[in-house]
């Protein structure tokens, strides 16, 4: 298509990456049988994962600058996110099978809704892939906006008033926010006047980085403010996070898992992308990182405040998302050795949060409520998902040996190394508050006396496998990382730093 000397070998990768979801999006509207639909979905997602793996292989084998094809590009940063996306989608899609089987059995969802789910799910996959693979900031913006539109109706898969309300808020806030982000893009174009880039090249992040020196600095900074507020709305950085708890709590569990597992990271990826450009433009003075850090700290504190007084488990998890997005932002904002830790944290958080929402969803189905006042004694009643929920929550509040503890430790380490005491102090205070607040909920849910006695629920092998894989994965990620992986993450970190 838009060819600036495409190396076809790589071109195919991008073609495939986009083709699979689009095909699914169109094709799945025709599948009548819901079960077949679900399994087809799993197949498609696995296929996408395979393509991503192929891309990764090409990336390692290929040139240092990453894979380029016209407006498309995969470098360390984007492949890292692609990989996380693949993991999240695989887990949550397989989970969706068991989840919706239960719904269909209980006859609480229609075949039509299932079809809508299938094609929108693929659409979301495609939109996210577009975001992660596009080098052109305009295209990237289109991708982000598309994710909003694709996922909006996933929230109100069952048309309850509450879900509609949540969807409306999500839709409007994110559209407005992303509109600001577009304004940021325009300002970047304006700033690029001096560079002599024209036409399609003017928004290519790779090009912009190359001639970052002669961008118009003040304008770039202004642009960054617009971009961070715009995309930040979708990331859920406080105080732009207001839509997040509503959407997460009202969506069906697989969708919530997708939301906090990767939708937020998609927008965060956009921020990281432009951060690289802006940092390069301002000469690595850390100005952009500073702004990001500010947002991160505010998010941690706000999240802590709301976690202390939460009664709905899915809202609790939603605020945890706010907190962890804040942690990642702080990590990136601290710069230096913290950035790769932040990217590492992206993976940890996504995996952990996916598991958490999946468990919360199944337990919600079991208890018929998400109110933690009634959702008690899960360990006794549903050992499988109970373990999943408790384990993932303990991981989320930063218990070792789960991976999140390690990445947070590294972030604090970098903060101390660079002597940013205030940030470190707020970080630790916030996380400790979250720990104290959330742990109370965990204990009550895990071992509190249930209101009425029930027999122990038996779960399918698939579900047991899901829980075990996720938890073991978290422990392994926390205790095992070959040097190559670390180098890869550090390379991605350098891209964010604009070096």
């Amino acid at each position, binding site marked *: 298509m*838009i060819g600036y000397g495409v190396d076809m070998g790589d071109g195919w990768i991008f073609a495939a990456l986009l083709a699979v979801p689009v095909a699914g999006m169109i094709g799945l509207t025709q599948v009548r049988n819901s079960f077949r639909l679900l399994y087809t979905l799993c197949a498609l997602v696995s296929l996408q994962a395979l393509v991503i793996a192929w891309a990764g292989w090409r990336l390692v084998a290929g040139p240092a600058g990453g894979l380029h094809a016209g407006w498309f590009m995969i470098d360390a940063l984007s492949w890292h996110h692609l990989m996380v996306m693949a993991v999240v989608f695989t887990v949550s899609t397989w989970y969706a099978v068991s989840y919706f089987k239960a719904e269909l059995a209980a006859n609480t969802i229609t075949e039509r809704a299932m079809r809508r789910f299938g094609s929108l799910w693929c659409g979301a996959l495609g939109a996210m892939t577009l975001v992660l693979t596009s080098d*052109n900031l*305009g*295209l990237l*913006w*289109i991708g982000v*906006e*598309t994710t*909003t*539109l694709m996922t*909006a*109706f996933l929230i*109100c898969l069952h*048309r*309850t*008033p*509450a879900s*509609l*309300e*949540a*969807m*409306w*808020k999500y*839709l*409007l806030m994110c*559209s*407005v926010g992303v*509109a600001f982000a*577009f*304004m940021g*893009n*325009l*300002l970047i*174009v*304006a700033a690029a006047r001096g560079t002599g880039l024209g*036409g*399609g090249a*003017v*928004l290519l992040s790779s090009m912009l980085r190359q001639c970052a020196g002669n961008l*118009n600095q*003040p*304008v770039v900074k*202004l642009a960054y403010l617009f971009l961070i507020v715009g995309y930040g709305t979708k990331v859920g950085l406080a105080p732009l996070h207001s839509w997040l*708890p*509503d959407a997460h*709590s*009202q969506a069906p569990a697989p969708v919530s898992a997708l939301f906090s597992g990767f939708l937020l990271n998609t927008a965060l990826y956009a921020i990281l992308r432009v951060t690289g450009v802006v940092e390069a433009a301002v000469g690595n003075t850390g100005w952009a990182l500073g702004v990001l850090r500010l947002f991160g700290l505010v998010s941690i504190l706000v999240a802590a405040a*709301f976690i202390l*007084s*939460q*009664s709905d488990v899915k*809202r609790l998890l939603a605020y945890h998302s706010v907190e962890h997005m804040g942690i990642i932002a702080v990590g990136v904002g601290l710069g230096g050795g913290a950035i790769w830790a932040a990217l590492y944290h992206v993976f940890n958080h996504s995996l952990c949060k996916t598991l958490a929402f999946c468990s919360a969803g199944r337990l919600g189905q079991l208890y018929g409520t998400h109110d933690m006042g009634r959702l008690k004694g899960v360990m006794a009643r549903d050992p499988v998902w109970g373990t999943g929920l408790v384990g993932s929550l303990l991981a989320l509040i930063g218990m070792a040996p789960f991976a999140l503890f390690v990445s947070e430790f590294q972030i604090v380490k970098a903060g101390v190394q660079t002597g940013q005491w205030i940030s470190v102090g707020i970080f630790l205070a916030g996380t400790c508050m979250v720990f104290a607040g959330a742990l109370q909920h965990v204990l009550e849910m895990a071992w509190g006396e249930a209101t009425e006695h029930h027999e122990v629920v038996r779960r399918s092998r698939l579900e047991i496998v899901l829980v075990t894989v996720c938890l073991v994965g978290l422990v392994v990620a926390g205790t095992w990382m070959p040097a190559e992986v670390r180098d890869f993450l550090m390379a991605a970190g350098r891209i964010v730093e604009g070096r």
Partner: protein
Amino acid sequence: MWVDGLFVVLTIANLILLGTTRLSHSIRVVAVQGVLLALLPILRVESIHVTRALFLVVLTAALKGGVFPAMLMRSMREASVRREMEPMLGFTASMALGVAMLAASFWMGGRMQALGLEVSPISMASVLFMMFTGILLLTARRKALTQVLGFLVLENGIYGFGLLVAGSVHWLVEVGVLLDVFVAVFVMGIAVYHINREFDHMNVDELDRLRG
């Protein structure tokens, strides 16, 4: 000269939007605004690819002048609401605020100048004012439909801003953006329809069941 005149017209349109209560009026005003903005590239001589430019102008004008108003009118009729009742911020108050915002946007336009973006302050001020208006409509009105309008006005403002500061981005990007806006409005329309069916009202500020 022409351009500045056009922008004066747009500004007046914004003030009308702040003042009017009838939704149908607002819809039309927004449509006119959109068309005028769409025509703007023609008045600017330096656009190179004439065919592409024309294509874009036609597309934009058709969407903003034809499709959007039609869709909004339809959902207005389905929701059977005529006017924006008791807004959170009274109309006179919003007019006053509008004037204040106009002043602010002039100041900001000046600052923009300082940043080294060579654009005429009037036009810059007017697009900024357009965005302010959009935000005001989004935050100070009750009806979901008005918020959609607010979003459109905001979008118009950003479009105008783009024309001023960025010149033409690559036409594909613009098409993509247009497409997105179209889908967005479409989706919002459906959402309004469903909300209206579920709640049999479309007052957004009564959608406050989810808190904390």
